C-alpha cells in the first residue's frame, strides 16, 4: 500500500520541498506532498533527504506534514480523447479543473486525463492468433472527423501472439480490448489507452533523413527558409517581434495531421485566443475545424513553475504517440526560454553550481535531448509505417540578445533559424523574420521536393530573389552615404525590385483572410513574376531605358495587389504575366 511508504517534510522553500524517511524513493518518482496531497516529483536524493519539485503552489505547507510515494514516474495517459483537449503542464484537463474548482485553479485537484466514461467505437484490424510485434496496429477508433486514432500494441514487448481481441463495439479507454502473449509467455493486456513516462522518448525502429518539406503557407518560411517534416527549428526574438503570431500561424496552416501546441510560461489570454479561434477556423484541406487535429498544453506564466518544466515533456510525449501511428505531427513550444528559466529556478533552489547566467550546467544537454526527440522515423510495427515529428521552439532571449545561453544551446541542435527582428517589427513588417540572418540547413535536402511541388526551377527563383535582397543590403549602405541619385540605373532598379520583394512578398498579414495562407503554387508564381520583371527590366535598362519608366505606378500597384489574388483565381497570374511581357 502506498500509505505505508510515507515520509515527512523537513523543509519548504517555494516549489522545492525536502522530505526524509523515504528510503525507497526513486529518482523522478511522483510523490504526493502534504495533507492536501499535491503532486511533486523526486529530483534529487541525498542520504536520507529527498528533494521534491512540487507542481502546485506550496504556501501553507510546512515541515512535519506527510509525503507519500506512488512508485510511478511522471506519466501521461495516451489514448482516444486527447484531441481537442486543453491540458495543464501535468496533463490535467483544464475544462475539468474549471468544473471542479471554478474560474481560478485551486490546489490539490485530481483529474483524469482522458474521459473515463466516454465510449469509443473500436474497429479491430487483427484477429486472434495473429503474430504481432510491438507497435502493430490492433484496431482503429475514429476520434474526430479529421483523425483516426490507431490503437497500437504498446512498446513493452518484442514479438507475441494475440490470444484474444475484442469484437467491433464501444469501449471505454480503460477496458481491455486485447490480450497478447509475448515470446516469454508473459501476458500483456491492451486497453484503448496506456501510460507512458514523459521523460523517456518512445521507441522507434529507426530514424531517417528528412526529405519532405513542411508547407506552412507562410511565404518567407516556405520560400526562403523551409523546414523539413521531422525537422527542428527555432524562432528567437525579442518581445513584440511576433514569435507567438508565427507559432500560431504554423499551428493553423501547417500541412500536418496533428498539432500539439505547448504554451509554456506564456500569457493566459493567448491560450484563450487559441481555444476560441481554433474551433472556428477550418483546415484548408478538409474544411473541418482545426481543433479536431489539435492538442493544447497550457502552463501560463502564473501557473506553478515546476509544472512548466514538465509541460514541454508532456507535449512531446503526446506528439510522439501520434507520430507512432504514422502521422505527421508538429509540436510548437512557446516558449522554451520559460522552460529553461524553470530549470534555472529549481536548480537555484537546489543550490547547484550555476553555469552561464545562473542556468544549470546541464541546460545544453537537456535542450539537445528535447530537440532530438524530433525526427522523420520508421515507426515500430511490421508495416514499417513512417511518421514525422517536427518541433519548432520559440526562444525569448532577454533584451533580444542572441548570445545568451538558451538561444545558443538551441541553435546548436536546430537546423532552421528564423531570426525575428525588432526593427522589422517596429515597421510593422510581419512576419518579422530577418532574411539576412535566418537560415535553413534543409535547403539542399529539400531541393528536389520543392522543384517538384512548387514549380519548375523553384530553387533557382529562390536563389535569384535572395541574391537581390543581399545586394540590396549592400547598396543601402552606399545610399546612406551618397544618396540614391548617385547609383546607376541598374542599381536603382534593383533597389525598387528588392522593395517589392520585401513589401509585396515577404510581408504577410496574418489577420486578413486571403493573405494569411499562401499555397506553394501561388508563392512560386509571385516570386516568378517579380524575378521575371527584374530580368526583363535589366535587359531594358541595358538598352537605355530608365528604371522609373519600367516600374510604372500602375505596374507597381498590380504587383502589390498580387498577394490579394485568391487561391481559386490563381489563373489571374497568366494575365499579369502577359502585361509584364509588354514591358520590353
Amino acid at each position, binding site marked *: 500500500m502506498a500509505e505505508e511508504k510515507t515520509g515527512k517534510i523537513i523543509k519548504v522553500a517555494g516549489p522545492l520541498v525536502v522530505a526524509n524517511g523515504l528510503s525507497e524513493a526513486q529518482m523522478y518518482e511522483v510523490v504526493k506532498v502534504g495533507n492536501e496531497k499535491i503532486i511533486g516529483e523526486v529530483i534529487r536524493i541525498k542520504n536520507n533527504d529527498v528533494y521534491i519539485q512540487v507542481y502546485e503552489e506550496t504556501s501553507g505547507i510546512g515541515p512535519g506534514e506527510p509525503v507519500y510515494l506512488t512508485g510511478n514516474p511522471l506519466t501521461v495517459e495516451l489514448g482516444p480523447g486527447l484531441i481537442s483537449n486543453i491540458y495543464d503542464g501535468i496533463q490535467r484537463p483544464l475544462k475539468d479543473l*474549471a468544473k471542479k474548482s471554478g474560474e*481560478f485553479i485551486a490546489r490539490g485537484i485530481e483529474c483524469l486525463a482522458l474521459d473515463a466514461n466516454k465510449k469509443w467505437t473500436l474497429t479491430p484490424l487483427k484477429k486472434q492468433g495473429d503474430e504481432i510485434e510491438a507497435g502493430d496496429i490492433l484496431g482503429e477508433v475514429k476520434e474526430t472527423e479529421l483523425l483516426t486514432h490507431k490503437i497500437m500494441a504498446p512498446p513493452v514487448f518484442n514479438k507475441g501472439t494475440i490470444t484474444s481481441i475484442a469484437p467491433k463495439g464501444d469501449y471505454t479507454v480503460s477496458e481491455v480490448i486485447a490480450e497478447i502473449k509475448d515470446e516469454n509467455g508473459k501476458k500483456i493486456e491492451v486497453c484503448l489507452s496506456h501510460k507512458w513516462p514523459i521523460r523517456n522518448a518512445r521507441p522507434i525502429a529507426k530514424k531517417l533523413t528528412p526529405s519532405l518539406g513542411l508547407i506552412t503557407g507562410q511565404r518567407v518560411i516556405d520560400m526562403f527558409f523551409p523546414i523539413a517534416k521531422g525537422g527542428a527549428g527555432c524562432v528567437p526574438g525579442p518581445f513584440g517581434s511576433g514569435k507567438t503570431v508565427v507559432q500560431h500561424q504554423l499551428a493553423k496552416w501547417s500541412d500536418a495531421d496533428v498539432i500539439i501546441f505547448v504554451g509554456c510560461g506564456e500569457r493566459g489570454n493567448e491560450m484563450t485566443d487559441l481555444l476560441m479561434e481554433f474551433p472556428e477556423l477550418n483546415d484548408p484541406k478538409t474544411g473541418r475545424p482545426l481543433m479536431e487535429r489539435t492538442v493544447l498544453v497550457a502552463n501560463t506564466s502564473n501557473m506553478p513553475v515546476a509544472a512548466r518544466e514538465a509541460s514541454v515533456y508532456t507535449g512531446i510525449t503526446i506528439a510522439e504517440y501520434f507520430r507512432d501511428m504514422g502521422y505527421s505531427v508538429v509540436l510548437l513550444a512557446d516558449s522554451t526560454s520559460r522552460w529553461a*528559466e524553470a530549470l534555472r529556478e529549481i536548480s537555484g533552489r537546489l543550490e547547484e553550481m550555476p553555469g552561464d547566467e*545562473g542556468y544549470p550546467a546541464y541546460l545544453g544537454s537537456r535542450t539537445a535531448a528535447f530537440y532530438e526527440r524530433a525526427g522523420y522515423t520508421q515507426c515500430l510495427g511490421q508495416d514499417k509505417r513512417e511518421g514525422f515529428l517536427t518541433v519548432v521552439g520559440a526562444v525569448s532571449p532577454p533584451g533580444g540578445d542572441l548570445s545568451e545561453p538558451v538561444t545558443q544551446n538551441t541553435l546548436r541542435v536546430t537546423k532552421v533559424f528564423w531570426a525575428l527582428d525588432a526593427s522589422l517589427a517596429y515597421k510593422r513588417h510581419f512576419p518579422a523574420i530577418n532574411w539576412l540572418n535566418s537560415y535553413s540547413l534543409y535547403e539542399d535536402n529539400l531541393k528536389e521536393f520543392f522543384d517538384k511541388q512548387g514549380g519548375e526551377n523553384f530553387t533557382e527563383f529562390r536563389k535569384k530573389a535572395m541574391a537581390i535582397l543581399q545586394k540590396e543590403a549592400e547598396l543601402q549602405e552606399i545610399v546612406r552615404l551618397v544618396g540614391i541619385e548617385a547609383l546607376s540605373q541598374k542599381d536603382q532598379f534593383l533597389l525598387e525590385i528588392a522593395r517589392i520583394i520585401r513589401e509585396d512578398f515577404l510581408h504577410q*498579414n496574418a489577420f486578413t483572410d486571403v493573405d494569411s495562407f499562401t499555397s506553394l503554387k501561388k508563392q512560386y508564381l509571385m516570386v516568378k513574376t517579380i524575378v521575371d520583371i527584374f530580368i526583363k527590366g535589366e535587359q531594358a535598362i541595358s538598352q537605355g531605358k530608365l528604371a522609373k519608366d519600367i516600374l510604372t505606378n500602375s505596374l507597381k500597384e498590380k504587383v502589390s495587389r498580387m498577394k490579394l489574388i485568391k487561391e481559386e483565381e490563381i489563373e489571374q497570374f497568366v494575365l499579369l504575366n502577359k502585361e509584364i511581357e509588354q514591358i520590353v
Partner: protein
Amino acid sequence: MLKTYKTITEAAGPLVVVGGVENIKYEEMVEIEMQDGQIKRGRVLEANETTAIIQVFEDIRGLNLKGSKAKFLAKTMKLGVSSDMVGRIFDGAGKPKDGGPEIIAEKYLDVNGSPINPYSREYPNDFIQTGISTIDGLNTLVRGQKLPIFSAAGLPHAMVASQIARQAKVLTKNEKGEVEKFSVVFGAMGITFEEAQFFIDEFKKTGALEKAVVFINLASDPVVERITLPRIALTAAEFLAFEKDMQVLVVLTDMTNYCEALREVSAARKEVPGRRGYPGYLYTDLATIYERAGRIKNKKGSITQIPILTMPEDDITHPIPDLSGYITEGQILLSRDLHKKNIYPPIDVLPSLSRLKDKGIGDKKTREDHSGVLNQLFAFYARGREVRELALILGESALTDVDKKYLKFADDFEQKFVNQNYTEDRTIQQTLDLGWELIGILPKEEMKRLKEEHINKYLMSSSPKGEERV
C-alpha cells in the same frame, strides 16, 4: 494555539531567522514583537524543521535579538475585502492610511490569488476609448488587457496614466444603456509624496477618488512592503471585478521600485542572481502580478492593468522592462526625443505595441477602416523616420520627391496626431479622420496597406485636396 518564540537567532536586512520552531508553514504570517513592544509583520520565506527564515515587511531598525519575540499566526497572508474599500486610501499592508476606520471585511482573500484557468477566461475584445490618438488609433487598449507604460526618469508618465484613468470608457453600452466608466485601483510603490499627491489630486478633481481604491507605499515607507502592495491591490481589484461586477482599471506605479525591493530581499537571502543581480525567478514573480488581469466567462466585471515602470538609463533591454514586455500584452513607450520636442503625450508609436488590438478594432467595434489606417500610418511613419535620418546626412535637397513627402508626413504626424492636449478627449472617429488627413500627404500608389474601397470612401472625404490626387 498560536506559538510565540523567543529564539530569534539572526537579523539581516529584511530577514529574520527564528530557531527552535515547530509546525510552521511556508508563507505563514508572523508578528515580530520588538523589545520595546512594537509589532512588525512578516511571513515565512523558508520553512525548515526547526528554523524559519522570515521576511519582515516593515523596518526592523532597533531590533534586539534577545528581547524580541516571534509569533506565528497559523495563517497565510489574507486581505479583508469589502465594498467599503472604495473611496479609501490604504498602506502597503492594507491598513487605512486616510484616518478613517478599519474595514469590516466581507471576506478574507489570499493575497497571492490563484491563477485564472485559461479555459475560463473570456478573450478581451472590447475597445476602450482613452481619448489619446496614439493609443486608440495605433496601440488600441481593450478591456481586460495588461498594457504597461515604459517610461524613464523625467518623462510625464504620471500625466499619461492619469489621463487614461480619467478618460477611459468602453463604448458598448451595458444593459442599463449607459457607457460604463472604470473604477480605479491605484497602487503606488516607492514613489515620492509629490507624485502620489499628483494622482490623488487628479482623482479628486474628476471625482474619480470616490470610485477608487488607493494603496500607497511612499519612497520613505518600508521597502519590503512594496512586495506585497501590488498583490494586495490586485486582490481588492479581483474582489471588485469578479464579485461586485465592476470594471476595474488597475494603475501600478512604479514597477521598477517593486523589482528593486525583490532584488533586495533576494540578495539578503544570498540567492544565486540572474541578470544584473535580479533573482532568477523575476519573470515568474512579475507574471503572478501581471497575469491577474483579464475577463472571466459569465462575469460582468473585468480587470485592465496599466503598470508604469521607469527604464533605468532609458534602456529597454534592462531586465525589468524586458521581462515585463514578455508577459504583458504590449507596451506604451515614452520617448525622450518627443518630450524634448514638446510633444505631449510623448508616445513613440513604433516600439509601442498592443497585442490585443486586432480583436478590439474594426467594423462594429471602432470603424471598418481602422486596421488599414493603423498599418498604413505605422508603415508611413517608419519610412518617414528613415528618410529623416537620411536627410540629416545628405541634406533635404538630396531627397526624392516622394521622400520629401514622407518627411513632411513624419513631422505632421508628430505635431498633429501624436501631440494633443492633456485634457483633450478625442473620439475614435476624430482619431481615424485625422489619420486619413495625414495619409493624404502621400500619393495613392504608396498606400499599400489600405483597401481600395476605404481609400475611395474616406480619403476623399477627409482630405481637402483629395480631388487633386491620381
